[in-house]
């Protein structure tokens, strides 16, 4: 996973609430067994509308996405985060996120940052005077060239994962002793391999 310390670039705005992961990546693309190459299918049905935000050339190389509340609700498909990241997004700013999507995004190297609607409104006002933001994951700060600066809260564990591009599985594997100790103190209910079904 790529480390994500700070991103500076254009901002694309998807002004809709409750965008579900079925829209971000429809089901027909979940049959692939690869982890890469999903960007070409991002918002597959919605991009057929010429007025859709991704069809504006200004938005196609934006690394930052501003979205509506409850972004990424619904299905657990991590392919949604993979598609956004593969398309070129590194940061999503929204009032709230679907819980599973939020974790999937962190695990994909895509920073899902929750901001109050008022903070998003301020950023959007500033973007009118110049379409660029810097999102600093180390300082937990978003700045606009006009001087506007907005701080944000972010889970410290997720911050570490993103800033250093860490593999969470490897981190937990280092704690094998603790897991073994837990297992020693707890009995198992069944062996799925041995059950007579």
């Amino acid at each position, binding site marked *: 996973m790529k480390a994500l310390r700070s991103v500076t670039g254009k901002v694309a705005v998807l002004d*809709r*609430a*409750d965008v*579900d992961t*079925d*829209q971000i990546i*429809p*089901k*027909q693309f*979940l*049959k*692939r*067994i*690869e*982890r890469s190459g999903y960007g070409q299918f991002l918002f597959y*049905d919605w991009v057929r509308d010429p007025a859709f935000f991704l069809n504006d050339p200004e938005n196609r190389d934006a690394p930052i996405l501003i979205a*509506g*509340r*409850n972004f990424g*609700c*619904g*299905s*657990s*498909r*991590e*392919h949604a*985060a993979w598609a956004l990241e593969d398309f070129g997004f590194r940061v999503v700013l929204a009032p*709230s996120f*679907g*819980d*599973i999507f939020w*974790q*999937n995004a962190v*695990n*994909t190297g895509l920073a899902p940052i929750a901001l109050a609607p008022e903070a998003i409104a301020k950023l959007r006002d500033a973007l009118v005077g110049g379409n660029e933001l810097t999102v600093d994951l180390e300082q937990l700060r978003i700045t606009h060239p006009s001087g506007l600066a907005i701080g944000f809260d972010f*889970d*410290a*564990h997720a911050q570490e994962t993103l800033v250093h591009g860490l*593999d*969470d*599985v*490897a981190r*937990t*594997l280092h*704690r*094998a002793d*603790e*897991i073994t100790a*837990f*297992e020693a103190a*707890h009995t*198992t*209910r*069944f*062996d*799925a*391999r*041995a*059950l007579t*079904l």
Partner: protein
Amino acid sequence: MNGSTLFRKIWDAHLVAEEDGVPSLLYVDLHLVHEVTSPQAFESLRLNGRGVRRPDLTIATMDHNVPTVDGPITDDLARAQLDALAVNCDEFGVRLLATGSGREGIVHVIGPELGLTQPGMTVVCGDSHTSTHGAFGALAFGIGTTEVEHVLATQTLPQALPKTMRVTFEGELPFGLSAKDMVLAAIGQIGVSGGQGHVIEYAGPAIEALSMEGRMTICNMSIEAGARAGMIAPDEVTFAYLEGRPGVPSGAAWEQTVEQWRALRTDDGATFDREVVVDVSALKPQVTWGTNPGMVAPVDAVVPDPADFADPDQREAVQRALTYMDLAPGTPLVDIRIDKVFIGSCTNARIEDLRVAAKVVSGKHVADGVKAIVVPGSAQVKRQAEAEGLDEIFEAAGFEWRRAGCSMCLGMNPDVLGPGDRCASTSNRNFEGRQGAGSRTHLVSPAMAAAAAVAGHFADTRELVS
């Protein structure tokens, strides 16, 4: 000491490690695996030289991609993904209940039916409807593919402590209504993001009166309210359902286990971050009219007018939804004609669901121009339904009787709606394009789907069954 919630008791019992400022490491008792969200997880294990830590606590099945008609798989990508699951399970020592084994089915149907899902457990699966298993008093939630790998490799997950919500269903459910109507009404009240960051406990007399099938329907749709998980305290109904199933102990060990399970209840005086009350005593059958499960109304209502919504975001969302659904404000829901009917999915494809639907269509026939299919939730549900003659009732009424799978709930197999098709569906999501690009989904209970099939439009199921 205020006492502890059911959720907190299970959470505390599964903490491998807890430190301030970092997520807790939570132990996983049961990991369910299917073909769609696991291939990249197994591949990463392979690339990093990792194994599956507890294959004895892991079980896989084939459900999302499988065809529900006889014959070979014609979709090369689907076949490759199913083949990959078989290869991965074989290589990593995971038991696979493959198509044709007689034990296959939708992952959230087979876990409970095999007695693998048990009270007090933590259950995860790379599928958002894993919340279903909470009906047994388990903490069960959906995870992404990276987390699937995490659980395969470590049998744990780092988790931040969620908030808690209790949804209490007061009153007695009227005749002809079901758990689906209860949960759709609750989502309408809470909203599709109202449960975000929360684990919901469902309680109250109307929950206690439900069968396990009904409780699974309720917990299944927790994610549609945005919640991480939903759960219901185990009771005699739970124990009676589980007794004798393959995964549970027998004899003296069974009695002892049940005694332990009886402690899995929220203590008097325990507090929740949020409390919601839903009165079901005057509830009517529910029908969704929009493009998320919170856009729902009683069957005797009309399609709402966007102008009636004060919040501009909501007004715009309703307008978009009505355009997509091709519905005019003020249209009575009973005047909406349908093209297709789907009775199936992890929400409503258990034996009780099929019995209720069969009762509605018995001696009647699907309306002209309507295509209707019934897809049992598992091979075992299918066998049981056939033993009870339900397949004959459905076929005599003009339904197609299919093999088990996820099918038209998400249309990854050939069971897909065409553009513009309008479907009465017992599934869980009415998102744009969910059942096929351009298709229009209305979520209803099995009894309401059956009534719509017969009438050719939405109808109050209570008028068809006395």
